[in-house]
């Protein structure tokens, strides 16, 4: 169950990253729909976190529990922190912040699969 959800998060994170990079390249103000895509990524990250925690209760024992839990927490908080930091800035480069946070969320989702 963990792998399919993690791959969905990774694929969706790549989609958000590409959309945000296109926004920077076009020098366009950050559109509202990009925020909505980013918040949806956070919702998916929360689902991934719940599945990852459920896997623990079903007997999964990662090599390093602290690393595993660190990745799970990071996946959930990164995008909200990034969006909060650019709350009052809708300039083109604020889409770059979304791109960086989305890419990092995707990488963390892959890492969760690798360390579990």
């Amino acid at each position, binding site marked *: 169950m963990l792998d399919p959800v993690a791959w969905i998060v990774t694929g969706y994170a790549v989609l958000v990253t590409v959309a945000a990079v296109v926004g920077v390249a076009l020098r366009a103000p950050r559109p509202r729909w990009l925020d909505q895509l980013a918040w949806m990524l956070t919702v998916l990250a929360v689902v991934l976190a719940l599945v990852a925690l459920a896997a623990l209760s079903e007997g999964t024992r990662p090599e*390093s529990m*602290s*690393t595993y839990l*660190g990745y799970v927490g*990071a996946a959930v908080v*990164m995008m909200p*922190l*990034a969006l*909060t*930091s*650019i709350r*009052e*800035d809708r*300039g*083109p*480069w*604020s889409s*770059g*912040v979304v*791109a*960086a*946070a989305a890419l*990092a969320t995707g990488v963390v989702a892959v890492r969760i699969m690798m360390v579990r």
Partner: protein
Amino acid sequence: MKHTTSTGPHLVLLTVYAIFVLAAGARSLVQIATRFGDAPLAYVLSLVAAATYVAGWFAIRRAAAGSPAFAGVMLWVELAGVVVVGTLSLVEPDWFPDATVWSDYGRGYGWVPAILPVAGLIWLYRRPAEPRSQT
């Protein structure tokens, strides 16, 4: 990840630095707390890298606000760290039983640790000059 209000490429740099503060800091603290004896040099260097990213974040923030001197020092220090540790990890692998953030020039992190200070320096030297105050 609170940023300065002025928009620009530094927003992306600040975000990536914040991510690396989290990544390098958490990694080094876990390694030092759980298995310091396995590779003390590597783990201490990862902690140094995390401290450098904290300083780099503040330096870029200050530069974006019009005070570039600290960034002019910190970004070169960070680049020197990546080059020295990356080179040592290749020529003296026995010194590093476990990887640091800067091992192999940051290969474990997609070489972002090597790209980041270079991108920061390019931004620092290409950003528009601050307007002089007229008295």
